[in-house]
């Protein structure tokens, strides 16, 4: 069954000039239709201003579409009475780690969601422990969030969402403000969530190396879905990605440059290993040809 389905979703907002007159409307999301299966790891890519964050906020019913419909686990997000159930089903992690932690102690922050849901005290403790263990932050449960690194703070935020037992987690550029170590930590935690807990993950990012393990990738541009496919399919279109202000991993770019020079390498190489294997085959091929 699909956990998230959007049909022709458009989101417009009105821009005002200094006197408050309507200057025009801006279409941030334009006619987007998606269908995402329970348990998948989805990546949404796009440059800044491509509409990916606006789309993400629709999944958690922070925004509702101007046109079209969003269903989360079969629930229409424009129905007001469903809003809390939707937010519980599709949790959300934001970009700035400082601006989403409410508690002054790690465990209290993780308990915030369940408290809002009216979960009995004993079960809150159980959920907090499970969630903190799942992201590897259990030993920090008594710490103040102010003393944690960026990566640790984001893992606490993920635990805070996990404690609400969602079916789906949307992460809106969770690594944009982190250093490489923090980024690795967070991505590892996110992957574990998907593999071990079976939670559907929707990861929004502009770091290409973070999407290699995704089941499906959507690339957004100008509010529309510009590309869609497996990471390999996406990465094989280097020129198109560059047009969309994106990047490919260096190894993919290297393979692409060599291809252009006539070296017969396959499309969409993602890892160092793959590259070396492919190059070995090329070498063998050319030496047999030479014979």
């Amino acid at each position, binding site marked *: 069954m699909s956990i998230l389905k959007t049909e022709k979703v458009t989101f417009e907002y009105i821009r005002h000039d200094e006197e408050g007159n309507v200057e025009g409307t801006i279409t941030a999301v334009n006619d987007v239709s998606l269908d995402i299966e329970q348990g998948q790891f989805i990546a949404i890519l796009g*440059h*800044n*201003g491509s509409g990916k964050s606006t789309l993400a906020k629709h999944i958690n019913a922070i925004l509702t579409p101007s046109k079209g419909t969003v269903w989360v686990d079969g629930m229409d997000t424009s129905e007001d009475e469903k809003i809390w159930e939707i937010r519980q089903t599709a949790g959300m992690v934001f970009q700035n780690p400082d601006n989403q932690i409410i508690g002054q102690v790690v465990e209290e922050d993780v308990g915030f969601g369940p408290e809002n849901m009216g979960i009995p005290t004993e079960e809150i403790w159980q959920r907090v422990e499970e969630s903190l263990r799942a992201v590897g932050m259990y030993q920090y449960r008594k710490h103040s969030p102010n003393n944690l*690194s*960026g990566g640790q703070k984001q893992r606490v935020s993920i635990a805070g969402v996990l404690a609400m037992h969602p079916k789906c987690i949307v992460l809106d550029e969770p690594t*944009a*403000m982190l*250093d*490489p*170590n*923090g980024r690795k930590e967070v991505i590892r935690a996110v992957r574990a969530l998907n593999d071990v807990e079976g939670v559907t993950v929707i990861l929004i990012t*502009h770091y*290409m190396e973070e999407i290699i393990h995704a089941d499906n990738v959507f690339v957004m541009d100008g509010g529309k879905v510009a590309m869609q496919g497996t990471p390999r399919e996406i990465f094989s279109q280097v020129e198109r990605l560059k047009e969309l*202000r*994106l*990047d490919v*991993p*260096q*190894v993919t*770019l*290297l393979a692409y*440059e*060599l291809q252009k*020079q006539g*070296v017969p390498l396959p499309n969409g190489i993602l890892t*160092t*290993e793959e*590259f*070396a294997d492919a*190059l*070995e085959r*090329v*070498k063998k091929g*050319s030496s047999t040809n030479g014979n």
Partner: protein
Amino acid sequence: MAIELEHVNFIYGEDTPLAVKALDDVNLMIPDGQFIGIIGHTGSGKSTLVQHLNGLMKATSGDIRYNGESIYGKDFEMRKLRSKVGLVFQYPEHQLFEIDVFSDVCFGPKNLGLSKEEVEERAKDALQKVGIPETMYYQSPFELSGGQKRRVAIAGVLAMQPDVLILDEPTAGLDPKGRDEILQQIKTLQTETGLTILLVSHSMDDVAEYVDRIIVMNAGKVMFDDVPKSVFAHVKELEEVGLAAPQVTYVMQELRKRGFEVGEDATTVEEAAKAILRCLKA
């Protein structure tokens, strides 16, 4: 015109049980016109280091000389140093405050006590250098896109016409294209004006293509200080301290392991492609 650091130490919270040595016996020579990358993970001391260079932080011990003169001397004018060594902080767009772009860029030169004409000329010059068109001069800085805001903030420091420009993580939070654009602009600036540039980053991939020299910081110490090629040769040590060489370095290493004779020089995609082609043809 150079900055020299001699046995510089900095200790946070001295005399408390929580004292942390943020800089540990740092010795550096920063000559004119170099493009230097300062690399290190969070907490390695790289941000502390650059704040010493324009006197925002004072060393616990050791000496820093600007053009041969100790900046801790009694008669040294700290304000002058700050105008000559410009520092662009992380997320510099968070310091914008004026009603329009142009006035904001004027803030720095105005503080130097220059005439109105001179101030405006410098502001225009700086905005031009970062690629902000005149049509945006009288817009509110808060209405610009993230990348534009950042350029305006960089122009705000450039307008003071420093000899040395330090940028702390200038690409943080930008998308890949925005990152490349800013780095390219900094490179152009450096080649055209001969400015000394220190680029603080935690990403090897970003700086490898642009800089002449890399200083790797770890636990408050200078771990490596050399041309990129030589620094990346220490892949193992870099990884031990939580840093990584550019992915190309790993590719080339793997190829060498499998018997390809690709040499050890390549640190960028372009160089690597050339080396591999040469190897395949041989």
